[in-house]
């Protein structure tokens, strides 16, 4: 099966920032992304858990984005502008995709 090189960018960010981030990604020419739930976690700002929330403010989500390697920098620049002042984690890893024409 023929596969093609791609990059997988995963951004964990606070739920109220979700739309701002996906708008920025779309603005940077990203053709697709998926949003995954995060149940809880811990970091410099302490422990949190989705079940211990009244509102949406405290929760986080993960935005995963598969892109062609040459688009990585544009994407990271766009994402960074949103994430900059906010808590959260941005990771990039290599992957291969089937059906590269989709990206």
């Amino acid at each position: 099966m023929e596969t093609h090189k791609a990059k997988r960018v995963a951004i964990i960010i606070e739920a109220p920032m979700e739309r701002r981030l996906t708008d920025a990604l779309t603005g940077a020419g990203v053709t697709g992304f998926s949003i995954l739930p995060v149940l809880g976690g811990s970091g410099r700002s302490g422990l949190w858990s989705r079940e211990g929330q009244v509102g949406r403010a405290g929760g986080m989500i993960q935005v995963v984005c598969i892109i062609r390697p040459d688009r990585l920098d544009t994407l990271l620049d766009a994402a960074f502008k949103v994430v900059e002042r906010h808590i959260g984690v941005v990771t990039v890893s290599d992957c291969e995709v089937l059906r590269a024409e989709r990206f």
Partner: protein
Amino acid sequence: MENILALAADNLGSPIILSFALGLAAAFARSDLTVPEAVAKGLSIYLLFAIGFKGGAAVAAHGLDTTLVLALLSGGVLSFAIPFIAFGLLRVMTNLSTLDAAAVAGHYGSISIVTFVAATSVLNSQGIASEGYMVAVAAVMEAPAILAALFLVSRTAGGGDRMDSELWREILLNGSIVLLVGAFAIGWITGEEGLASISSFIVAPFQGVLCLFLLDMGLVAGRGLRQARGVMTAPVFAFGVVMPLVGGTLGLAAGLLLGLSTGGVVLFTTLAASASYIAVPAAMRVALPEANPSIYLTLSLGVTFPFNLTLGIPIYVAVASVLT
């Protein structure tokens, strides 16, 4: 005084408060009891819908007070003004940074709808009537405080671009406001007939649902308090008890000046005394991400909310009963 104590004792022994206490206790004991997020959100949708609808139906039944517009206006003004007072108090009482103080202050101008619901349920059990449109006043008071908080920051901590039109839309059209106001409108339009058709859903089981919701609030508040031991210094803690009394006094004065009924004055006092833990925190995470959420969430949910629920509301009822 006796009156207050009797009311407070009554209140403290109600299933609603005891459910909250159970949640608190379970959280402190590190029990794994949790209410799933979806269920908690379902319960809050129920409460908002029911309280809005009943408010609207009450307006349909008793007609519109001429003071409605004035009450809405006063609510908006109070919500914008209280953060300035809270900010001053915080700068004097605590050593929070400007940013943290402004963020906290914003929470106290806004309101907690569950505190409002608890107050109406105390009024019901005491047979004290209130203006149905107080629900609309609650909705009006949600947002102006956020503006005040951002104003405080831009004045003192620089950077005025924290607010964009998108954030405005999000704040004004946040789910709770839309549901509360929408249900109010539906209740108003359909009136007593509408209320009758769904009262075995929104009236009869209301108190019981409130118990489960407050059980969850107790769990959340308790976990918050346990985790925030570090940031909660004594002065910050004290602010969480003093501020509702200060805000409540302003609300009381406004309610009396407007000539509201006893129940209306109680609700106005309660709104002014309560602090937001849903709409404002979300807005703050977007606009003031540098402010520490543990401080404002713990204060409003872990200190002021339980204070109002247990002691505050009986005090407000007793004082309003004397003064109206």
